C-alpha cells in the first residue's frame, strides 16, 4: 500500500473529510466499473456504488491494515452489496442482461473505428455478464483493473493458488462464450 494512501486512511479514520474524498477519488471508478459489470444497469450501479462508499466512510474506523489492502477491503464491501442486491431481486439478473443494450457505453460514434470499439466493448461486456459471479470477480479485478494476485485473493478470501486456478477457468469460459460469435447467439438467440 502506498504511504500516501495509508496517511489518507489514518486521517479519514479521524473523520477527515478531505482525506476520505481523496480515497474516494482514487477508488470510485474501479468500484463503479466492478459493480456496473456485475449488475449491467447504470442506475443500480450508481446506487450500489454510493452504498459501498457510504459504508466505507461509516466503518473506516474498523479498517486495520493486516494483509488486506484498502482496495481489497472496498471490493469486499462491493461484492457483498452486489450479493445482497441479487438476493433481494432474485429474478432481476436475467432481465438486466436483456436490458444491457439500453445501457450502452457512450463513445463518440461518428468515427467507424470508434464504432467498432463500441461494439467490441458491448460484446465483451455481455460476455463478462454471462460468466459465473466468482469468475466475473476474477476477470474484472485481474484483467480490467490490473490488481495483483495478492489483492484479488484478499478481496475474494481465497489463497493465491486457488485464485490462479479460478482465473484459468474463468478465461477458458470467457473464451468459450466469445468464440465464433457464441456471445451473440446466447444473448439474442440469433446466429
Amino acid at each position, binding site marked *: 500500500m502506498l504511504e500516501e494512501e495509508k496517511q489518507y486512511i489514518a486521517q479519514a479514520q479521524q473523520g477527515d473529510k478531505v482525506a476520505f*474524498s481523496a480515497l*474516494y477519488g482514487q477508488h470510485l471508478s474501479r468500484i463503479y466499473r466492478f459493480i456496473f459489470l456485475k449488475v449491467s444497469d447504470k442506475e443500480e450501479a450508481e446506487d450500489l456504488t454510493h452504498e459501498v462508499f*457510504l459504508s466505507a466512510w*461509516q466503518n473506516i474506523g474498523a479498517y486495520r491494515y493486516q494483509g488486506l489492502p484498502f482496495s481489497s477491503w472496498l471490493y469486499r464491501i462491493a461484492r457483498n452489496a452486489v450479493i445482497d442486491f441479487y438476493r433481494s431481486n432474485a429474478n432481476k439478473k436475467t432481465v438486466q442482461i436483456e436490458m444491457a443494450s439500453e445501457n450502452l457505453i457512450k463513445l463518440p460514434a461518428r468515427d467507424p473505428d470508434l464504432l467498432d470499439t463500441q461494439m467490441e*466493448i458491448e460484446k465483451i461486456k455481455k460476455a463478462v455478464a454471462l460468466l459465473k459471479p466468482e469468475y466475473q470477480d476474477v476477470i474484472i479485478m485481474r484483467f480490467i483493473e490490473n490488481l495483483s494476485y495478492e489483492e484479488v485473493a484478499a478481496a475474494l478470501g481465497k489463497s493465491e493458488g486457488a485464485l490462479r486456478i479460478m482465473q484459468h477457468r474463468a478465461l477458458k469460459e470467457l473464451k468459450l462464450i466469445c*468464440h465464433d460469435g457464441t456471445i451473440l447467439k446466447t444473448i439474442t438467440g440469433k446466429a
Partner: protein
Amino acid sequence: MEQYLKQSLEKLRVIEPKAEFKEHSLMLILSAPQNDFSPNAVQRLKYLMGAPKPGLIFGISAIFTLLVLSSFSLLYFQPADKPALISSLNPQAIEQEMETLNIQFSQIRYYENLAKKIEIALQKASNKPSPSEKQIEQFFNEITL
C-alpha cells in the same frame, strides 16, 4: 486468442461514473456520521466481551460450585429432625399416620354419640326438662373417669 481477450477486457476501462453522480454521492456520504471505532470504545467492548479476569472467573466458579453442592446435599442428606419430610417420602409411615388419625377421629365420634345417648336417656328417665350442658359434662366425667 487469450491476448486478444485481455486487450478487449482492458477496453472496458472506459466505463466511468457520471461526474454529476461523483459529486452528489460524495456530498451525501460526507454528510453522514461515522460509526464510533475509537480505541476507548474498542477497549470498553473488549473488557465487556471477556478479556480474561482470573479473580472474577474464580469467584463465579466458586459460587456455582457451592450452589451445586448445596443442592445435592439437600437432596441426599436431609436432616433427621424433620419427620414430616422423612415420612412424606415413606409410604408405610404415611399409612401409619393415617391409621392413627382414623383412630382419633373414631374416638371423637364415639364420645359425641355417647353424650347424646346419655342426654336422651336422662330425659326419658326423669321426664324432666333436658339437663344443662354443665350437668351432662359432669355426668360424663363421672362415667369416664
